[in-house]
């Protein structure tokens, strides 16, 4: 598990997770991230512009889940076609495209992320009840 993620968890949670880290816990996280990969891509791009490689790396560092190239690049291209993302070549590097959320779509994207977070929270409430 990455340092970034560890810092976000309190010690109790970490203790429980460590017992199952390589098994069930990993499977659940894997399923959540893979089933909602578009949201996770939007989440990382909401923080800063990135190329496809960095999006994959960031999700791996934060969630310890590898979203493969065949899953991430089509999402980036689809979101770009829908006008949600824009892409620019990096300065001095015409071969690497940086994706960022289109300014006029920032609010819509944030709403989508909030809705996802709310859905996850209400599921969590049900599970922990």
């Amino acid at each position, binding site marked *: 598990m990455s340092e970034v993620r560890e810092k976000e968890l309190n010690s109790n949670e970490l203790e429980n997770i460590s017992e199952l880290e390589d098994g069930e816990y990993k499977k659940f996280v894997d399923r959540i991230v893979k089933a909602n990969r578009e949201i996770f891509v939007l989440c990382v791009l909401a923080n800063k512009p990135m*190329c*496809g*490689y960095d999006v994959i790396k960031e999700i791996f560092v934060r969630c310890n889940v590898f979203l*493969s*190239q*065949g*899953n991430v*690049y*089509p*999402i980036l*291209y*689809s979101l770009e076609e829908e006008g949600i993302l824009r892409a620019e070549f990096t300065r001095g590097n015409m*071969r*690497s*495209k940086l994706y960022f959320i289109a300014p006029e779509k920032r609010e819509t994207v944030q709403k989508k992320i909030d809705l996802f977070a709310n859905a996850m929270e209400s599921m969590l409430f049900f599970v922990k009840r």
Partner: protein
Amino acid sequence: MSKGDQMFRDTIKGLDKIIEGDIPNGSIILVTGAEGTLKSSLVFSMISRYLEKNNEFGLYATLEQTKESHLKNMASLGLTTNNALHLFDYSDMRTEWKDNEPDMIKVTEEIIDFYRCEQEKLTVFALDSLNALCSLSNEANFRRSLYYFFSNLRNKGLTSFLIMETPPSGTSLLAYDTGRSEHFLADCVIELGLIEAGEDVKRYIQVRKMRGVNHRLEKNQLVVGEQGISVLGSIYRSI
């Protein structure tokens, strides 16, 4: 899967001279030929026109050309695309992962699955080219991988056009020696080539194999005009 209004054989003027019925849905069609024989243009044209009249969706995956460059080439031949045909190029992925290139067979299957989720009616797939896919595969046993790749395309019910570059002799240019297994695994093999007669060089099309469909075996002339690609009569009668 039901047939729409447009049949593949009607997408190219004169193709009905060679094929009696239509290419069955869900078939794997290997389109082979040397450079400059119009492989990409023929496939792009067939799919693009097929989708114009059918309420279906297509995916054209190009491993070596960028989307922009491919569209520019097609436009120079008078070929246009439509919204139902999505072009996916691997250039960003290949540039960013150049030091650790992923297995492109696996990646290609994931890309198809992504677009199948997005578009329920994804029925047609094209890969340009099988040679590039082969050279970018990490698999030690490429022949086995190719078998599963073909099986997966069939299981998904996609009519798949796989472009393969061959030297003029017609032998395989795949990076691995697959013993021409791609020819055996495919349901249809369409060969494109060049014939020289003196100073004259002409392009031809030959349907070498089409499972379940009556077709002629002769080589017919292939030309590009203002209306796009057309099939004329026997090439030997024109030289």
